[in-house]
């Protein structure tokens, strides 16, 4: 497995404030890598550093084997970007926008026209090619910006919150376009988002960042299952003997009863919940509700961030401290 992006202690400070603090990540070639974090976490700063638009205060990074300090132009030559703003020229038409960026990328005349046509057809904007971008909806602009990012067949794509501000159907459509284009063209994607559902559905690996610090990194399922998973049962007729019996199954690592009477079963890794509920019912308990807690990436993401900013334990994911 080769690495498209590697950062080592990458740090950036602005006027004494640390925007990015000792970031260590590796993005495997060909993967879709999600960079998660709340607003102001340092996601955009990371992209700017990786594009060589900002100088690191300390540490370093390589992108497609090129050093961000020494060969920033080489990096920008081989990557595609869709940053916070779509970056489209509203006074120009869709075709003129793509044509400009194709010329910047030095595509030959024939390649330019065929590539622009195929991408505009792919995103359903070929019929609107001669319309000024100012007349487009936000969703259409984002699609066009995505096409622009793919224009010169980059080996790596940086996408900064590509679905931010889009309504759900448009966001789903754009996400679909992104995955299809990325898989079709074999591109590595570095995607920043605070949309956890998006990360869960699209990404092969994710990293969670807050206040410039990496909290966790790994496949989404590792982060998802890395937090404590428990089964919350509202039932009557549950006695200590039944709980003890459930503990013996090996699926439960601990149990307690909440003051309101709910039974909380701490689940073992990969524990199946259906047999546990069946065992409860077969033992005479009257189960009115059973709910799994802490299974979504979102819940574990929030747990990772913590209320006080202190990262909490996420055992399934590789944490920076663990690697050190």
């Amino acid at each position, binding site marked *: 497995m080769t690495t498209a992006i590697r950062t080592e202690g990458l740090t950036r400070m602005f006027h004494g404030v640390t925007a990015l603090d000792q970031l260590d990540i590796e993005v495997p070639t060909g993967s879709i890598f999600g960079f998660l974090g709340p607003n102001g976490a340092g996601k955009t700063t990371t992209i700017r550093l990786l594009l060589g638009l900002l100088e690191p205060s300390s540490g370093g990074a390589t992108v497609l084997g090129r050093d961000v300090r020494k060969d920033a*132009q080489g990096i920008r030559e081989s990557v595609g970007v869709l940053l916070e703003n779509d970056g489209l*020229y*509203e*006074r120009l*038409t869709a075709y003129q926008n793509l044509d400009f*960026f194709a010329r*910047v990328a*030095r595509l030959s005349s024939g390649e330019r026209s065929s590539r622009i046509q195929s991408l505009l057809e792919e995103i359903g904007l070929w019929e609107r090619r001669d319309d000024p971008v100012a007349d487009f909806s936000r969703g259409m602009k984002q699609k066009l910006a995505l096409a622009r990012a793919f224009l010169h067949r980059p080996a790596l794509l940086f996408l900064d919150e590509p679905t931010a501000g889009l309504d759900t159907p448009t966001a789903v459509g754009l996400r679909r376009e992104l995955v299809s284009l990325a898989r079709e063209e074999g591109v590595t994607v570095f995607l920043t988002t605070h949309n956890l559902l998006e990360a869960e559905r699209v990404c092969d690996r994710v990293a969670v960042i807050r206040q410039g610090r990496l909290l966790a990194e790994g496949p989404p399922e590792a982060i998802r299952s890395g937090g404590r998973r428990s089964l919350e049962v509202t039932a009557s007729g549950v006695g200590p003997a039944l709980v003890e019996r459930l503990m013996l199954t090996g699926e439960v690592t601990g149990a307690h009863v909440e003051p309101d009477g709910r039974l909380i079963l701490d689940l073992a890794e990969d524990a199946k919940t259906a047999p546990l509920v069946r065992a409860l019912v077969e033992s005479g308990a009257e189960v009115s509700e059973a709910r799994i807690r802490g299974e979504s990436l979102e819940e574990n993401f929030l747990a990772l961030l913590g209320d006080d900013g202190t990262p909490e334990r996420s055992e399934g994911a590789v944490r920076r401290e663990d690697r050190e």
Partner: protein
Amino acid sequence: MRDLLVVAGKELREIVGAGGGRRGLFREIMFVGIFGLFFPLTQAEAWRAGGVPATFALMIPLFLVGPHVADSFAGERERGTLETLLATRLPDRSIYFGKIFAVCGYAWVVTLLILLASLLALNLTGGGRSAAGARVWFTYPSFVWVAWGLGSIASGLLIAAIGTFISLRSKTVRGAHQAMMIPMFVLILGGTIGIPALFRQLPPATRTAVLSQLEAMDAVVVVLWGVGALLLFDVVLLALGARLFRRDRLISD
């Protein structure tokens, strides 16, 4: 050079409002109508002498370049296109000089159109007279063409260099436009009122000596000296601007 032309091409498309309606062209038509037709028709004799068109060849680029150059970086920043542009493989200098090349080229062409329109207007309403008194095609004296050919470029570059300094540091287009008013007024008023006023402050003997010296010289040479000095100043300003144009500064600002 190829990258510079790509940037310049995009800028020109934006300037004339390609795909965005006819507003851009309307502005150019207005300029040609006012400076190329209205003024020559109402002040024909002054235009025929050559001093007025030569002065306009130096002044018009200030009006044409100023607003566009103010928009060049501040506008891109405000519209959210600057970072994407900086994230391309384009070298800094191609972006910087591409924008300047576009606005100056645009101003040069519009100034030429104004000059040609004025010639047409003067010929349609009287034309020139041969020594024998016959009606002939009138054309401007050589110094006017020198002022147009080189002078308009020099004055365009001057305001473009100053404008990029302002535009690079302005957060908004409005702020850049407002800031641009100061150098534009200084240059326009300085050229039309300031220099003549200063000249009048000279002792009469000195004034007479300077005037007689100038009269003894070929007008083309006088214009060339003036334009040469201006171009030298432009080169210094542009070199300084190119040194200050840095991606990281534009992003972190």
